[in-house]
């Protein structure tokens, strides 16, 4: 008797606080996002305009597209730091090949090479079970070197910028919306569907949540991990098409540092680095927050490095909020 009563009692007292904390836990990132938008629009009259929003989202679409693939890798329980170098490689390749074999061939061949590199990552991490942080760190360096060897260090450019349909991906508009945004959000939609509603997605979550249990259930861990790296290579290649088309040229180091920005966006979205949880929608919000911070501070006239300080605080606060609400306590209890 007594135990049921006490349960009901404590349950009742806690329910309101619980509701709020759960709301905050689930939607904390959204709340923070809206808060940001409000603060920036109060202080800058330029901020709250369709044009500016479209600009920001378009700028975010490159990082965002990569982040889709990386989110899948992270949900599967691994990291991918090689995407920055891979972006450079793919952009250089697609731009360079464009004038040599035409846009179709360039895109096709670039995709093949991107997937090949993804397969190398996937093989080393999925099948040989090497640590993903170190492997992709090594690949970061190696791919950068391969890019430089390929170009001999030269920039690459597309000569006929106006007359190629390749311009569509980075500069075109469809139904009044910039094509990069359509690619980004379209891929995100597909990825979210695949993750949440297909057997493939469920397997990725299982493998990330508990690799041993997944294997004991007959799921092929190695194959799943392998495939997540193919996907991150694929989305990175898509980002490279946007980037190459937008700039109509490329430097060898164009993607340098992107891996960290992407990772920051994924983390900000609340995807756990331990694997097994996360969502594309939240990653998108994470990436957009980073972009809006950058844009907002710039419009407010702060020097560009101010955004780094804000990013620091935002990343830690967002993840802390997330953890604290599942823990039910603000601070950890060990000493």
């Amino acid at each position: 008797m007594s135990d049921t009563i006490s349960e009901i009692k404590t349950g009742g007292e806690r329910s309101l606080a619980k509701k709020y904390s759960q709301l905050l836990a689930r939607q904390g990132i959204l709340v923070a996002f809206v808060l940001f938008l409000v603060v920036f629009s109060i202080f800058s009259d330029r901020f709250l305009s369709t044009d500016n929003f479209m600009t920001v989202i378009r700028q975010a679409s490159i990082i965002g597209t990569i982040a889709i693939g990386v989110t899948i890798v992270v949900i599967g329980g691994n990291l991918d730091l090689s995407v920055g170098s891979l972006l450079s490689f793919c952009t250089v390749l697609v731009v360079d090949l464009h004038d040599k074999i035409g846009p179709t061939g360039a895109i096709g061949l670039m995709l093949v090479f991107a997937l090949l590199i993804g397969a190398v990552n996937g093989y080393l991490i999925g099948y040989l079970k090497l640590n993903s942080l170190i492997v992709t760190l090594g690949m970061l360096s190696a791919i950068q070197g391969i890019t430089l060897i390929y170009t001999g260090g030269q920039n690459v450019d597309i000569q006929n910028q106006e007359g190629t349909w390749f311009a569509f991906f980075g500069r075109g508009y469809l139904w009044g919306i910039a094509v990069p945004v359509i690619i980004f959000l379209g891929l995100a939609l597909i990825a979210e569907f695949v993750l949440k509603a297909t057997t493939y997605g469920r397997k990725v979550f299982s493998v990330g949540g508990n690799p041993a249990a997944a294997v004991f259930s007959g799921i092929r861990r190695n194959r799943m991990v392998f495939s997540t790296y193919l996907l991150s290579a694929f989305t990175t290649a898509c980002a490279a098409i946007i980037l190459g088309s937008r700039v109509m040229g490329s430097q060898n180091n164009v993607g340098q540092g992107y891996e960290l920005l992407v990772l920051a966006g994924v983390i900000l979205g609340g995807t756990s680095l331990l694997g097994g949880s996360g969502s594309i929608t939240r990653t998108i919000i994470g990436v957009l927050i980073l972009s809006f911070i950058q844009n907002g501070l710039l419009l407010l006239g702060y020097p560009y490095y101010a955004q780094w300080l804000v990013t620091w605080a935002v990343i830690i606060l967002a993840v802390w909020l997330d953890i604290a609400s599942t823990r039910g306590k603000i601070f950890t209890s060990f000493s």
Partner: protein
Amino acid sequence: MTTLAHKAKSLVIEQPIWLFVAACIVVFSLSTEHFLDIGNFKNILVQTSTIGLIALGLTFIMINGNIDLSVGAVLALAACLAVDLQSSLGIPLAVAVGLLSGVVLGALNGMIVWKTGVDAFIVTLGAMIGVRGLVFVYTEEQSFYASDFAYSDFGVSSIAGIPTLAIMFVVLAAIMHWVLSRSVHGRNTYAVGGNRQAAIDAGIRVGPHMVINFMLGGFFAALAGITLSTQMGAATPNLGRDFELWAITAIVLGGTKLTGGAGSIVGTFGGVIAIGILRNGMNLLQVPSFYVLVIMGTILIAVLFIDRQVNRNAEQELNV
């Protein structure tokens, strides 16, 4: 005799990196004439001392099961403070301020990791971005230089023919080795990394313990910044970019597990030297820089692979 052979064998199994170092030495000494010069080895020690010093502190953090990605930015901040402030405070005080900044930022990272429970990777990824921001706020994008050559003279000075920085690195490595393997704090470092819950249950004050290691990490990063700036007589806001990655690489090559609980200063020392010798040897061989990137990346992965092959116990392993 047999115990010596036994020790050598276990060194090879536990730290295959030394095998790799030996192989590098053989290859490079056969293929380039200057490699075996004493002067070259002094150079290698001085050149690796920066990454090496960072790695000393970071090894403790990583054995703890944490990581610190902000060391490169902390290095830059300490260097900028030490160089910029010496005109107003004098060299000793400026250096002290630089070191203090590292310790304080380490403490901040550690406190956040402890109190919030946010993973150290995330906390220090944030700090890596943010502290670099601090450096730019402080320097306003400018470089500073030491007007007093005494500062940069230290960077090139030697004691008994051996560069001071090399001596400093080796001595500090020896001390940290002692601390890690002989002191109670050092042993607790393994305990906390090996099984944090067990350490908590056993009454080790895991929170303060981790904060101390983050402070050590910050201190060594700052010290590396200062020794580097004595070599340059200057400090630039971009200093130390990617250093965290190289330090982590060296540490992992040296056998420290990213999951914590295992590792050693001897191994880290080997990892640092391996990278130093590799770079130096490739310079001497004039390997084009593009190929150096590919080679370094490949070797990193290869060593990881070999380490796994050497250390795995095939019989106990499941086909997962």
